């Protein structure tokens, strides 16, 4: 049974790879414009004028929109996590493939924890709209700060590790 599934996937390896790469592109790029040109300028304005009423209102609006904006990214990520192992299985890869092992270490040890945190702060316990609806403004502020900490810490890592993973996957250097 498993062998026939594997054979079926192997016959459709390129189609599976297409779905995987499409999901990777959505995951990597879907929030980039909103992040770089909307969220970051507003948060920089907040950090420079942190007592400005209008800036705080705009900051709150932007981060709530961003909570929703990452939905595409967060739909794409599980698709990557499903199709990736299927590609590994059907493609006949093993632990001797160096570039793939390093890529998997990055995905499992860095990207998955980052994304799980992002799911939490954007859609579940840390979602700003939940605090707004509950009227918990102290919690709302804490949640905005936590989200900014998350972005400050993860942005350089995601940029470098994401680029490195793409490099490994495309050039397969070792």
């Amino acid at each position: 049974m498993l062998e026939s599934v594997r054979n079926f996937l192997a016959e459709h390896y390129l189609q599976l790879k297409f779905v995987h790469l499409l999901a990777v592109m959505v995951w990597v790029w879907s929030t980039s414009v909103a992040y770089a040109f909307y969220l970051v300028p507003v948060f920089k304005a907040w950090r420079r004028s942190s007592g400005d009423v209008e800036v705080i209102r705009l900051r709150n609006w932007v981060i709530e929109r961003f909570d929703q904006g990452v939905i595409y990214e967060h739909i794409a990520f599980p698709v990557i996590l499903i199709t990736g192992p299927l590609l590994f299985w059907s493609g006949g890869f093993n632990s001797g493939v160096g570039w793939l092992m390093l890529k998997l270490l990055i995905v499992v040890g860095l990207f998955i924890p980052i994304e799980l945190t992002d799911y939490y702060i954007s859609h579940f316990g840390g979602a700003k709209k939940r605090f707004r609806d509950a009227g918990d403004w102290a919690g709302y502020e804490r949640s905005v700060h936590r989200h900014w900490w998350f972005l400050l810490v993860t942005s350089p890592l995601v940029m470098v590790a994401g680029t490195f993973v793409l490099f490994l996957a495309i050039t397969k250097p070792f």
Partner: protein
Amino acid sequence: MNAYDKIGAPDPELAGARPFAGNPKRYRRLAIWGSIVIHAYLFFGYWAIKTFVAGEQFPSSWLVPAGVVASAIWFAFFSYRWTMRLDAQYGSGSRWIMESAQIKLPRERSEND
């Protein structure tokens, strides 16, 4: 009385605002330790896979650990500068102007609305 107390607005959205705790010292510590932990994880994780799963010799040359150390130093610098720039710790922001505007910010209705 800080800037937030001066707001004096009845709007709880604004009254709840507080200063952010991030500062250059914390960012530097995070960048250095983050880079060390990440590079150690990748190096020893790769070593463990190669040695115990693939049964191969790793590292095959001193260039590999030297490259990892160089990468860790570079990434600590890079991530510190990135975080500082992202958090508006460099420059005065003079390339931007702040224009006050009366606008309406659209939000989806909540259950309370």
